[in-house]
């Protein structure tokens, strides 16, 4: 605590000494707390008024408000208590609650009129009650109460009622439904789908043709189109296992992890930058990105994936490699938009905690837990106590540290254990580095000597004007050379080879339960809340061993919870079918969407848990279903009954996302370069790094002036993700095609159609380069007819039609020279290329 004038009131002791601190936000708001010189100061003549208040006004407060705004309830929502005159005079974080004589300007009245903050949040008060309080305020808000009232109703949220919400119910897949079209279903999934269609008088449309299916499954699983050979192989493969072969090939390719890792990174707020202020590089973030790619490719069981990301540092390990992976995984908790420039370090700490609670809630539980930071959740059965129970776990976790630069903090850096191989590699790099440094230093010595010599000569008297000009120029050059070498040396020293490191977390020295922070103010503290998990979906609370944060217990709970399974299978479903079975993929709360196929969702969740949380297995099952193979054409009758295709009578069409779009263009133009990961920002080039002088008040920073040769041809996931500005040029497609803001945790991106996209596709130099490369690639084929055939197979993954051949030829002729580039360009910008149907 500080000297800050914080008003404190002791509550009525109940279970122990409790201090509720009310009405504090920033020093800036202090003037609001000056008691008003108003009509409510009491005199003995006010007896009648006193009676009137206790008879007519106070009961309203007691009945409707005290639950969240009184000392006895141990709650002061928004910092406001209404059980004393002082309480509403001081008001909450929004200022005084009542302006005596002025109902229209009184927050309390506005709130009960439901203008602004709506109070009570669940239902508007009866009109006569509103009118009574309005009258009370307009008559001067007489209030004789000097001390907090005693109330008996402890309030709180109704957990039992909350547990009846579908998302918190146990899994119930029911019996596999019977269907009329017994021959249609290929898998249990199809049974659930077609049963529901039949119940609504609908039938699925025809299956998609093989070309369409192959393009669809290739994009969905790898973010890349099939190659011309892959198309030809598949359409001529008559074996019953043809589809399985394709799916297994795709699942086994490195491209699978490169695709699906990006979906996960959207939920993490991943960037190669720490925070948003300045351009501070997250030097080791890439290790987390590579870890996620590996996790998908090795089909790491999802429950294990959760445990590592939430508590990897606390898990036992079998070897150095596993230990390293466990530590890297905790990057999940710190690789978000951490505002490291926040000057108030206590605030930074609780804000980071808030971000972690938010992220865990969003990513695993599909909940908006952050809403319960300042008050009980308005719609969901999640109390402020639930928030602080989980927040306490992260409060016991160290995520950032204060650097010695200005006000800046940084996210924690963990030392990783080395494998023998890594150690040997490092030895080699160290030797190289020492040599390079020595060379640079001796070069610098020479340059300095030259500079000294020139300076000496310039100081001499016998220099002619012409010679002086020449000397000055040479001196300036030499000085430039010296400072350039200084930069190189400084850079080399800063980035000297070290043991591998990662961004991650560790427990603090003495983890403890956390106190409620009123409105997120770390100096306005309420009750201490025991650490634990959401009460509404847990009947027992974990036992947290002394001296530990509780992340291990939290991870265990998450990793066994059916809600986690539901949220996860639903997201996977959404990536493959365009929409989730629960359309609000990130929000399973009460006002969220309900599942269109609850039993199917539970069937998938149950199978997912039963089969070891294997994502590849789930994905394989889904894409081999007949439902996944449906055509996407419109059906008038079905469209009339189910216009949103919620029952899946056809496949949803999906526009490619930024990554798939760019990667596909690189692939079809033959330019895509394989990568095995590694640092995204080329920090090894001194010109990409600034602020290395330890005296600088700002932290070391990055620029993106120079790329590694060929780097701009790697898949988009490997290119730097930044926050302080538009995404870098080689990844400019992200700026245009709905890339997720790396300050948010997003399970499903928006899909927009705006003219900037059209302009990008038509006019940007990069698309022209792709078109040119594609045209060059085609020119290897001499026969124009074959060329067209190839172009269609490569880009649209289907044979060209007669009309198209005719129109394309006509177009080629009209364009003259460069026609093929124009044609390639046009196709790259066409809807059929932009979409997977």
């Amino acid at each position, binding site marked *: 605590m500080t000297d800050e004038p914080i008003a404190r009131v002791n509550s009525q002791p109940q279970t122990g000494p409790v201090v509720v601190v009310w009405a504090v936000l920033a020093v800036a708001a202090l003037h609001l707390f000056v008691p008003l010189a108003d009509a409510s100061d009491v005199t003995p003549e006010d007896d009648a008024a006193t009676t009137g208040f206790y008879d007519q006004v106070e009961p309203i407060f007691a009945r409707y408000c005290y639950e969240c705004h009184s000392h006895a309830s141990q709650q002061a929502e928004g910092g406001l208590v209404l059980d004393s005159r002082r309480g509403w005079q001081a008001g909450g974080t929004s200022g005084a609650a009542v302006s005596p004589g002025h109902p229209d300007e009184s927050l309390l009245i506005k709130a009960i009129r439901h203008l602004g903050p709506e109070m009570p949040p669940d239902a508007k008060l009866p009109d006569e009650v509103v009118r009574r309080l309005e009258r009370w305020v307009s008559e001067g808000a007489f209030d004789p109460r000097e001390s907090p009232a005693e109330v008996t109703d402890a309030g709180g949220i109704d957990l039992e009622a909350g547990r009846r919400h579908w998302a918190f119910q146990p899994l119930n897949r029911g019996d596999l439904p019977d269907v009329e079209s017994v021959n249609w279903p290929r898998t249990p999934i199809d049974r659930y789908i077609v049963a529901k269609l039949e119940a609504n008088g609908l039938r699925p449309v025809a299956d998609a043709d093989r070309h369409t299916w192959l393009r669809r499954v290739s994009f969905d699983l790898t973010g890349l189109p099939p190659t011309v050979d892959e198309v030809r192989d598949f359409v001529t493969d008559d074996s019953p296992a043809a589809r399985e072969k394709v799916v297994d090939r795709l699942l086994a390719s490195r491209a699978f992890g490169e695709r699906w890792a990006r979906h996960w990174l959207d939920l993490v707020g991943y960037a190669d930058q720490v925070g948003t202020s300045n351009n501070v590089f997250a030097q080791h973030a890439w290790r987390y990105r590579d870890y996620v790619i590996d996790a998908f490719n090795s089909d790491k069981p999802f429950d294990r994936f959760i445990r590592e990301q939430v508590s990897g540092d606390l898990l036992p390990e079998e070897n150095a490699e596993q230990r390293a992976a466990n530590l890297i995984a905790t990057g999940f908790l710190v690789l978000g938009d951490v505002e490291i420039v926040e000057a108030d370090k206590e605030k930074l700490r609780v804000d980071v905690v808030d971000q972690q609670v938010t992220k865990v809630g969003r990513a695993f539980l599909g909940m908006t837990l952050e809403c319960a930071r300042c008050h009980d959740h308005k719609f969901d059965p999640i109390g402020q106590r639930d928030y602080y129970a989980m927040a306490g776990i992260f409060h016991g976790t160290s995520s950032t540290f204060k650097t010695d630069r200005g006000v800046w903090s940084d996210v924690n850096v963990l030392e990783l254990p080395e494998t023998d191989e890594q150690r040997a590699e490092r030895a080699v790099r160290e030797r190289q580095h020492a040599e390079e440094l020595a060379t640079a230093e001796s070069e610098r010595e020479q340059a300095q000597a030259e500079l000294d010599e020139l300076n000496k000569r310039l100081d001499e008297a016998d220099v002619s004007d012409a010679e002086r000009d020449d000397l000055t120029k040479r001196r300036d050059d030499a000085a430039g050379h010296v400072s350039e070498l200084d930069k190189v040396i400084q850079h080399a020293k800063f980035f000297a080879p070290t043991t591998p490191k990662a961004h991650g977390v560790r427990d603090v020295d003495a983890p403890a339960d956390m106190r409620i922070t009123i409105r997120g103010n770390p100096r306005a503290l309420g009750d201490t809340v025991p650490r634990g998990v959401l009460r509404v979906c847990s009947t027992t609370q974990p036992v947290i061993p002394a001296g530990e944060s509780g992340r291990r217990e939290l991870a265990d709970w998450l990793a066994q919870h059916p809600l986690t399974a539901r949220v996860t299978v639903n997201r996977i479903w959404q990536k493959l079918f365009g929409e989730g079975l629960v359309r609000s993929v990130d929000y399973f709360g009460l006002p969220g969407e309900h599942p269109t196929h609850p039993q199917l969702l539970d069937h998938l969740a149950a199978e997912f848990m039963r089969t070891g949380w294997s994502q590849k297995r789930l994905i394989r099952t889904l894409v081999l279903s007949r439902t996944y193979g449906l055509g996407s054409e419109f059906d008038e009758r079905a469209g009339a009954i189910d216009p949103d295709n919620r029952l899946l009578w056809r496949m949803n069409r999906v526009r490619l996302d930024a990554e798939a779009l760019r990667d596909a263009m690189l692939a079809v133009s033959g330019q895509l370069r394989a990568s095995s990961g590694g640092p995204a920002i080329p920090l090894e080039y001194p010109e990409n790094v600034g602020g290395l002088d330890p005296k600088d008040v700002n932290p070391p920073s990055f620029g993106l002036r120079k790329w590694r040769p060929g780097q701009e041809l790697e898949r988009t996931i490997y290119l730097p993700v930044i926050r302080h500005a538009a995404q870098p040029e080689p990844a400019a497609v992200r700026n245009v095609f709905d890339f997720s803001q790396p300050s948010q945790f997003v399970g499903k991106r928006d899909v927009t*159609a705006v003219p900037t996209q059209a302009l990008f596709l038509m006019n940007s130099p990069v698309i022209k380069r792709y078109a040119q490369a594609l045209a060059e690639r085609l020119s290897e084929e001499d026969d124009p007819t074959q060329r067209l055939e190839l172009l269609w197979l490569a880009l649209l993954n289907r044979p060209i039609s007669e009309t198209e051949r005719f129109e394309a030829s006509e177009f080629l002729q009209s364009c003259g020279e460069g026609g093929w580039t*124009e044609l390639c360009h046009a196709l790259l910008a066409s809807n059929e290329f932009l979409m997977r149907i």
Partner: protein
Amino acid sequence: MTRNTVLRPIPQMTRRQALRSAACGFGGLALNGIVADACRAVGLQADSALHFPPRARRMIFVFLAGGPSQADLFAPKSYITKKHGEAIDSPLADDGQVRVGVTHFLPMKPVAPVRPRGQSGTMISDLLPNLASLADDLCLLKAVVADNKAHAPATLQFHTGHVAEARPSMGAWLSYGLGTQNANLPSFITIRPPADGRTYGAGFLPAMHQGTPLNVPQKPGEAAITNLNDDDTPSDVQRRRLDFIQRNNERLLDRVTADVQMEGIIESFELAFRMQAEAPRLVDLAGETQATREMYGIGQGSSDVNGRACLMARRLCEAGVRFVQVTMDGWDHHGDIASALPNSCAQADRPIAGLLRDLKQRGLLDDTLVMVSGEFGRTYWSQDLTGTNPIEKHGREHQQESFCTLLAGGGVRNGISYGETDDLGYQPVEGRVHLHDLHATVLHLLGIDHERLTYPHHGREFRLTDVFGRVVHDIIA
């Protein structure tokens, strides 16, 4: 949670007809929810749909990025001037903030004289002579309050109301609330915007409401909008390419029938093409008279770029754009403010004053709200990051506890100063205007009740002012 990606055909008219009739124009379409909620997505539009009779129909926001020093420009404090260079006790509570370069508190007087101007006596520095001559047209807010001390979060809050997250920006909310007046132009344009795209993003609002960034072309042939032109390809070839694309798109649409997304993309290509024709005319300043150009400081050294930006802003407003932002960098004076601030002022003074004067001459100021502000202000005590410089070389640290914002035009009381801070220019003592209040007031002037302009997201209704905001009626004419 009704923002489904719907694939629902619109009864009676095609989606494209619907969109044209809704006049949502250039900004394009968000596929999310737009068909089910066409009216909702394109905003309120008609005056009759506004919550109040609007006092302003459009807005220009001149953003002085970095935190201009109110201590030097608008609100000198006699106590500070008296104590110049003399260490005083810390006026700050131990608030847990790390402070850099402020080892002891040295009050620092303004770097140039600040005098009362015009009839109103509004205080303005000698560094802003042109703006000073318009003092009686200005409303100076002197106790504006933000919540964060660092540039990125404070800038984000000024633009979106929130210090983190990616909420819709002020311009996006206005676009959503007011709709556009010109179907070939976006309703929100931001000239030389801050790097952080969230400052002009649409957040969870439909993407058509996001700001369109504009560069200031400085030599002939330079494009104002990225990728607006394809200079390497003859225009007839471009046209043929586009026709070929669209023919293929239409054929695909016929083949697969009814697809809102595909129609949206087709429409966006057409709008882009229209925009290619419209936009260059608007940003081409060649048709402006020499007198006008001079008024804006165009062709006069350091004020040239800002002058062009401000003149473009006026032209865009005339063409029906609802919200234009002009960002002027260079106000983050941590050191040697005495020599740096005059330069920043020289870059901004004529352009801003020129804009106000021009709007006034054209009768546009009456229904155009102009706001000039930084994301926060600066301290009245000095800052010295070197730890060794004399006070003449000191700068000032960020201050979000109180700072100044200028308003003018559309429904604002002019010739007034509103709000006051303590003797140290630190805490507001009266007329406190939090950013949420400023946002509420701006919306009010444009005819919108900030509590009723909402959008559903993550299960609840969101607004620009979150659960805060109070209209500052005292400054409304």
